[in-house]
């Protein structure tokens, strides 16, 4: 539900980073915030628990400049990944325009990834949105952990588990090191803008 | 804001402090909640008005003012306060969302002053009148604002017929006009009597 302000020639769209708990969604936003601080006029908003886990959402407004004569502002959100926070997770999805699914590459988290994606599908359905139709990018995060000898899922396995039907663009990433964080963001913005472009004249 | 007099009196100044601290309730001695009776009920209604303004609440306010008029029928200054309150209350009830924002402020300020005047023991009539006069002046200012606003609207509606300066009297709700006249008359009389008393 992007808002296109024809008067101010401004587009506001909502991109949500989804995925299992401790998968690196907030770390994605933190990296973006650090890297583009000069273009982000405000502080990043984070509603966290004592244990530094996202309770409600993180929020980062991001000006990406002018596209087709419109000043475009992407509102980046993360959802709380923990299973018990589904009520708030669902609220954050309201009016979403594009989704980055941040999967955890650790072998241990294989099932959690699958469950989280299933949960995304259900929560979107509550808003009459379809995961197969909404702009979506897969990010296989924590690829750097392989160097430390932590067993990781292969990209093929991740693709098979998560992206076989959806067949959307994917990135191998390390949010902590910033690897492919920006590429993921660029891709989701471009897909989101493409889906909005029918409304931009 | 207030009409200063050269011989300001500390006690009155202290009362004015209360008066202008509109959101603060008065100290324990002045707290109507500790007093039984109709003033406490009036305070309760004012707290309700703070939250919500609708016909039920405004009718309750007007009924309570009536009840207080009986209680204070022998107290001229209190009667004038109550008439002021009634006039503004009726105006707000009639106008609702279209009321001038200052009318809501005035309603609260008249109430605060009424509370001070009615609960402060040992306040002289002159001090009470001084507080009353502040509210009457505010009332007058609101009246002027309403008249000006109406004149501007009229001028805008009828650009040919320009009527600057004096504002036509029918712009003030009849209830307000009547009470204002009464209040001014009584204050004039009271002050005349007070002066005469002072001279003799």
């Amino acid at each position, binding site marked *: *539900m*992007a*808002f*296109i*302000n*024809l*008067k101010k020639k401004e587009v*506001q769209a*909502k991109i949500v980073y989804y995925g299992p708990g401790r998968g690196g969604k907030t770390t994605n936003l933190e990296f973006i915030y650090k890297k583009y601080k000069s273009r982000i*006029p*405000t*502080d990043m*908003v984070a*509603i966290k628990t004592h244990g530094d886990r996202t309770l*409600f*959402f993180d*929020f980062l*407004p991001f000006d990406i400049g002018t596209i087709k004569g419109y000043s475009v*502002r992407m*509102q980046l*959100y993360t959802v709380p990944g923990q299973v018990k926070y589904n*009520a*708030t997770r669902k*609220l*954050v999805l*309201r*009016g*979403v325009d594009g989704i980055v699914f941040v999967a955890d590459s650790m072998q241990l988290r294989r099932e959690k990834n699958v469950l989280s994606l299933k949960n995304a599908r259900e929560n979107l359905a509550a*808003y*009459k949105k379809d995961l197969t139709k909404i702009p979506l990018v897969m990010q296989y995060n924590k690829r750097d952990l392989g160097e430390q000898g932590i067993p990781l899922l292969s990209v093929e396995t991740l693709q098979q588990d998560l992206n076989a039907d959806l067949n959307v663009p994917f990135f191998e990433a390390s949010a902590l090191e910033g690897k492919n964080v920006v590429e993921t963001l660029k891709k989701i913005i471009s897909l989101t803008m493409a889906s909005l472009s029918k*409304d931009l004249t | 804001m207030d009409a200063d007099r050269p011989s300001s009196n500390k006690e009155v100044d202290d009362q004015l402090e209360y008066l202008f601290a509109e*959101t603060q309730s008065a100290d324990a001695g002045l707290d109507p909640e500790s007093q039984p009776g109709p003033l406490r009920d009036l305070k309760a209604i004012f707290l309700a*008005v*703070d*939250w*919500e*303004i609708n016909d039920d609440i405004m009718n309750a306010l007007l009924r309570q003012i009536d009840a207080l008029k009986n209680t204070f029928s022998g107290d001229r200054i209190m009667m004038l306060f109550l008439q002021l309150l009634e006039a503004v209350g009726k105006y707000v009830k009639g106008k*609702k*969302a*279209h*009321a001038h*924002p200052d009318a*809501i*402020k005035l309603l*609260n300020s008249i109430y605060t002053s009424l509370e001070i005047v009615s609960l402060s023991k040992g306040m002289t009539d002159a001090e009470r009148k001084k507080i009353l006069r502040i509210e009457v002046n505010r009332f007058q200012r609101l009246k002027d604002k309403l008249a000006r606003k109406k004149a501007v609207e009229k001028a805008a509606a009828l650009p040919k017929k320009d009527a600057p300066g004096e504002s036509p009297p029918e712009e003030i709700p009849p209830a307000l006009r009547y009470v204002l006249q009464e209040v001014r008359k009584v204050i004039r009389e009271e002050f005349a009597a007070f002066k005469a008393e002072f001279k003799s």
Partner: protein
Amino acid sequence: MEYTLDQKQLDEIEAILQSDFIEMGVHCVLMIDMAGNIISSLDNGEVSFDIYSLAALAAGNFGAVSAMANMVGENEFSLLFHKGQDENLHFSRVTGEFLLITIFGKETSLGFLRLKVAEAIKKFETILQSS
């Protein structure tokens, strides 16, 4: 869920925010959608809030409170109000999809503000229905 507002609608909304809220002494007023996007916003020139973050949090907060209302068997709570030392916040739903947020000081009566909000919502509904 999808909507667009044309220039005329946006102008009318802004005019109401100005005449019904800023002129009565409200510090800042925002119309947002339930996703947290800002439709229109005005302030009195004396305050400067991070309105984008405010909008995101307000939408989330409103959603959370609505969910709580449902849990206790209420359709929705009619008064959403946060009182502060100097600034107060009031939220009100406008049609199903929008939210009006007013930020005001202690010089403004909540009772009166609520009247103004109810009145303005009727006007907004007329404007929004024409889309």
